[in-house]
């Protein structure tokens, strides 16, 4: 199942030989994904670091078209768009990773717990709960929670955490239903390990790989939600550089200065496309339908 997803495992320090071996296992799609993501990560670290311009600071006349001095031009307040686009990359990617990481842990734990009980009534109620939570249109539920908790970064993250765990729970439950009678689980029971230990140490690691595969597509969705809510003015708010918020600002100059939306939109899409390619490539490797 998990033959070839090295790049999403918490790799720690890999030796170069091992990296090369992993690279060889990848197919064209996932390689493109890795290249795109690596490029964006490198740029998002290096551009704000190397550029003399500050993402918040006024540098020149507002609304200048792209030029040699300002590769992406300047925005409506005369700030360097290049620096802002890549400063935004840092924030968006960091927020999306934060957004994915909490639901995956909570959801996998709850789902594994639900998958290992053998109580029919609990199962029925469980089904209803997950179906109900996933019935809410995602963005509407996030908006609803943000309305209550507060329209800022904190509120946005809380909303994502509350609304995104159910899918992981669903995946974990399906997988652990199959695992609860596996021999190694029975062995652990015979050894007298506690329920919690069996759950956390024996079943969850096996469930986690599938959850990680889903996390990649969830990452795309969450980065779109973060951008989307900020676009609506209900997440990250100006002057903080964030792709969605920048699109909302640039939208006012659509007719005359389209580069204000083209650059942030392009890199937001490129990030999502990179993750999508990686996810699809890995999925095909694990299914064994490789070229």
């Amino acid at each position, binding site marked *: 199942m998990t033959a070839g997803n090295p790049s999403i495992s918490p790799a720690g320090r890999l030796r170069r030989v091992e990296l090369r071996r992993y690279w060889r296992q990848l197919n064209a799609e996932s390689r493109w994904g890795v290249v795109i993501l690596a490029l964006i990560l490198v740029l998002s670290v290096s551009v704000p670091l190397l550029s003399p311009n500050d993402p918040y600071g006024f540098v020149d006349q507002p609304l200048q078209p792209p030029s040699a001095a300002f590769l992406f031009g300047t925005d409506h307040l005369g700030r360097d768009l290049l620096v802002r686009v890549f400063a935004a990359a840092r924030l968006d990617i960091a927020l999306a990773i934060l957004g994915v990481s909490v639901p995956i842990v909570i959801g996998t734990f709850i789902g594994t717990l639900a998958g290992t009980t053998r109580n029919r009534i609990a199962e029925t109620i469980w089904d209803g709960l997950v179906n109900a939570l996933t019935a809410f*249109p995602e963005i*509407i539920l996030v908006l*609803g929670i943000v309305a209550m908790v507060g329209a800022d970064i904190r509120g946005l993250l809380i909303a994502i955490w509350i609304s995104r765990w159910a899918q992981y729970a669903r995946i974990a439950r399906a997988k652990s239903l199959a695992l609860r009678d596996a021999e190694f689980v029975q062995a652990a029971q015979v050894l007298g390990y506690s329920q919690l230990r069996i759950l956390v140490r024996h079943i969850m690691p096996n469930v986690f790989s599938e959850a990680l595969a889903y996390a990649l597509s969830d990452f795309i969705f969450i980065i779109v939600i973060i951008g989307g809510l900020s676009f609506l003015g209900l997440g990250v708010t100006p002057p903080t550089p964030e792709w969605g918020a920048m699109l909302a600002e640039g939208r006012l100059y659509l007719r005359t200065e389209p580069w204000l939306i083209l650059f942030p939109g392009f890199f937001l899409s490129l990030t999502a496309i990179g993750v999508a390619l990686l996810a699809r490539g890995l999925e095909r490797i694990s299914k064994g339908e490789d070229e």
Partner: protein
Amino acid sequence: MTSSPGGIGARTLPLLRHPVLRRLAQAFFVAFLLMVFAFLLIRLIPGDPAMILLGDEATEEDVIAYRKLLGIDGSIPSQFGRYVSNLVRGDFGVSIRSREPVLSIVGKRLPVSLWLTVTTIVMTIGLALPLGVAAALYRRTWFGHAFQIGASVLVATPVFFSGLLLILLFAVQVNLAPIAGYHAGFPANLYYLWLPALTINFVLVPVLARILQSSIVETSAEEFVEAAIIRGTQGWRFYWRYLLRPSLAPTIAALGYFAATVVSYAVIIEIIFNLPGLGMTLVDAVRNRDYPLVQGIVFLSGLLVVGLTFMADLVNGWLDPRAQIR
């Protein structure tokens, strides 16, 4: 979205052995839980909502009146009891801002959103069916590869970016659509709706066409397809009866599943294209901290999706008799 076969329902109540009735019972149970979630939503507010809305200088009477308005006076169980009995009677509370009943606000704004949804789905079917079939039939040619790459790119492009690009292309460069806005009335409103609908379909069509493609590929390996070819079945009858119809079930199920996504994206689309629908109402309500209105719209949107999923299930049973046996 199915429960484990033979959950408690099928055992205790023989009536629930009928698949349609069981689905219906499940749908009602889920709707009840939606109500619980919507009720809990307002309890996420940190602190006293009445104080947040009124500020520090509020008088005691004002606070009490606001608590009553928000349905947060009395004990939690009695609040919930009142909330449920009000909902069942069609009372969704009153907007804090305009003091208008939530249901009448929704009723006024719903037509725009419904028109957007209908236009989107008609367009989805019109685009996804031929694309999916073509991608399945020509999957080993350049078209199949281009389809795969194009689909990956389109799915990952956020609607608020592709929407702006489409406005740039069709409304600014070529004058085929308005930049934003809406006018009611049937044929005229399509002029305002086709571009927003196309934007949503930039995400929806690739997903559905891909699902259709892979299920057609699966179907074509079945024995009854081979048998039909051997019997000499040809033309439309072959494509519809033996290839397309048995392959449609997963696509329809996905359409039901993605109903939530369509409704989701419609919120952002309505803001981009300035369509005065429910999405715009919701965003305004979030900005104004109009808690009852937010709560009402969140609940109704969930209810809508449950209804659509249920309908998709029914259509599926009709399309693919194999699905009914289970």
